[in-house]
């Protein structure tokens, strides 16, 4: 068995569910999250790269999940509508087993546009800086700041002010600040 095949088995055995959980932060729908994680794993391993351990492979898969999600939002507006609808309807997971906090954060994320959600997850879950998010999502830092600002305002309105970090950590200073122009 080739080295990459062993790593693939390890990823599926040990990290698959965590990857689905991560994908669900973006899609808010478990079925879509399963598909996204599955496709991201295949895409990651289909590229010939040195995947020698499960940790680096997982990092690659997570990056591919983000990219595929953002690409899907770029492809069509109808996907945006679909994601929103899915998040609002009966695709929520067994409410009786979900804690109130989980339901709250799901509802809060459902209120965000796909890119706002992606930026918020990368900032608050992956703890990336604004420039790092811009690089990951292929956006200008100005766009990231705008999405982050709007996402934060919406999340605060649903989750309350205590759920959000203090002002200094939301938008880390970028030097120089003026980086936002993104001509079409």
């Amino acid at each position: 068995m080739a080295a990459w095949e062993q790593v693939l088995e390890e990823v599926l055995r040990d990290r698959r569910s965590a990857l689905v959980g991560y994908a669900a932060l973006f899609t808010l729908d478990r079925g879509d999250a399963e598909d996204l994680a599955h496709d991201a794993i295949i895409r990651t391993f289909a590229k010939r790269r040195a995947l020698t351990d499960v940790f680096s492979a997982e990092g690659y898969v997570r990056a591919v999940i983000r990219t595929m999600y953002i690409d899907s939002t770029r492809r069509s507006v109808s996907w945006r509508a679909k994601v929103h609808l899915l998040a609002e309807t009966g695709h929520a997971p067994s409410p009786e087993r979900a804690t109130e906090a989980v339901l709250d954060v799901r509802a809060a994320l459902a209120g965000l546009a796909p890119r706002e959600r992606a930026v918020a997850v990368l900032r608050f879950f992956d703890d990336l800086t604004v420039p790092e998010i811009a690089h990951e999502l292929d956006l200008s830092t100005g766009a990231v700041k705008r999405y982050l600002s709007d996402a934060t305002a919406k999340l605060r309105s649903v989750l309350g002010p205590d759920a959000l970090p203090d002002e200094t950590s939301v938008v880390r200073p970028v030097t120089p600040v003026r980086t936002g122009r993104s001509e079409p």
Partner: protein
Amino acid sequence: MTAPLRDLLGELADHEARISASSAPDAGTEALHMRTRIRRLRARRLAAVSVGAAAVVAVGIVTANAVTAPPALLPVAPEPSASVTSSPSPSLPPSPSPSPSTVSPSPTATPPVVVETPPAALPQAADVTHGNEVWGTYVAVVDSFESPTALAAKERITELGYQSSGGDIGCDQGAAETLGLPQDVMVVASYFATEQDAALFAQMYGPDALGIAKVTLYCLD
């Protein structure tokens, strides 16, 4: 630092992961299925690369032959050479638009426009999309989108039933010039379809509004 929201997101991810784990297919079976697909994709990529490489080599050979061909092999007689070309919407019922005469017609009005009569209709929010030309009502210059000033401005806009937006002023082409602000400040604004709507909103917002400007929206790509 970001503990509460981060914890919430972590809890949601864990919750989904637990459910996914409980219904996950057998890892061995899934790996077998995936390996098959991955091998096929790798083979396809390899084939594509091979075809591409072969094409490059072929073109290279042809080009090299053309360049290095001995003059004796070239036609003696001249021939013609072949050229190679190679928002949230207002909740009040619709009513007639405000009279244009009640607002300043100047598109470069920096201070908020003073409307003498009460608004007859609520301003219509604009479609905030990348590249769209809209009228912005700018209400605050802020150091951070989480500063008390920014939060108060956003709250005020929300109270009025509109969507606030924070960003570098440079992302709104034309705003800095119109408002006389540096290009590197961050602002809170709301966007409208027409100058009248923007001016009306500035009046609704109150004297703290900085002004209105016709802008092209960027940073929403």
